[in-house]
């Protein structure tokens, strides 16, 4: 099993990740490495499915290190694609 199983799928484009998010729930990526001087910046959703879903993204310190966290504000399951910081 890939270490990323359940933590998003790494797409064909390097560092592009898709997370599935249940309605009114959180989902998180695998931890990503950070270097000196790093600080959190806005993370843009490259794609959301279905397009009507409302999903927001932000980096947060979680168990294991810094991860991208997604929250689905919609009533339907959604997936969100973004580029890992």
């Amino acid at each position, binding site marked *: 099993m890939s270490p990323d199983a359940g933590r998003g799928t790494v797409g064909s484009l390097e560092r592009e990740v898709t997370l599935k998010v249940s309605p009114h729930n959180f989902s998180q990526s695998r931890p990503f*490495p950070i270097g000196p001087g790093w600080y*959190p910046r806005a993370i843009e959703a490259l794609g959301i499915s279905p397009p009507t879903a409302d999903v927001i993204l932000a980096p*947060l310190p979680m168990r294991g*290190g810094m991860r991208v966290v997604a929250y689905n504000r919609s009533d339907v399951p959604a997936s969100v694609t973004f580029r890992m910081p």
Partner: protein
Amino acid sequence: MPAVTPERWTDLPRVKEPDAAVTERQVEHIVHAPSLLEGAGFPVRRPFPSREIGFREADPFLLLDHMGAVEYAPGEAKGAPWHPHRGFETVTYIMDGVMAHHDSQGGGGVIQNGDTQWMTAGSGILHDEMPPEELVRTGGLFHGIQLWVNLPQSLKWTPPRYQSLDSQHVTMVASERGDALLRIIAGELGPYHGSGATWTPVTVIHASLEPNARLRIPWPKAFNALAYVLTGSGTVGPAGVMVHEGMGVKLGDGEALTMTASASPEGPTHRLEILLLGGEPLREPIASYGPFVMNTHAEIVEAFEDYQSGRMGTIPAEVMETPDEP
């Protein structure tokens, strides 16, 4: 371990042992703190929350991370870059080494060699906790803890504040026998009290026991009681449960805490270095996600939305001078 250790303890005020008739607190749960990575990827040992000591047992405490002791090689030291908190307090106690911090309200400073930073995140704050450039460049010894103290529902939205508890102002007392040193960081121990102000009744003590020392101290009946071994070895409780570095203990009800140091405790100080924690349980629902600890899932979502939109605070421009990406 420079965490404020006087050469002579015999001159310090002594904490009277409780009467023999007082109920001793027995060991209820023991945990070997698992290791995990935090922040930028530095290792910590986390005795709670854990399967053995969960939120209910630790209440009013939420989390304890033990950092080091570690001798960093040049370029190895890491910290926790900018991140938010809401709904609780972080207590950072540095025994060896130094950590620099900044926050979204324009505050900042260093915590080093026995200092404590008591940060009330309350309604929300962004901060970073990083090794200074000098420590990253040269490497060096680092040893500290971070404790999370919960806030009751009525205080979750209190404005953020800092208390810098300078090592020179830590309250130091000795055990009645004189063979244990107690640094009261916050709260009360008998008639003595630490310099840290707490929102709810909480006691935080770093105790150092000489080889073969026996420490018996009063502990408020209404408090819970937790102990964590920083270095060395010994026993806890009247039944003499053996403990060593990295072990956490939850004790049961009673009005006295007892512990002993082994004849030759391992570790850099050759003493049993143990953290003693107690407080009045809040007994409120806990909703927790990463750096947010509230009472309901809806409040956690609100915290995430506020952070994501910048309503929880922003990083001051002057600390963002170093670009991290081209």
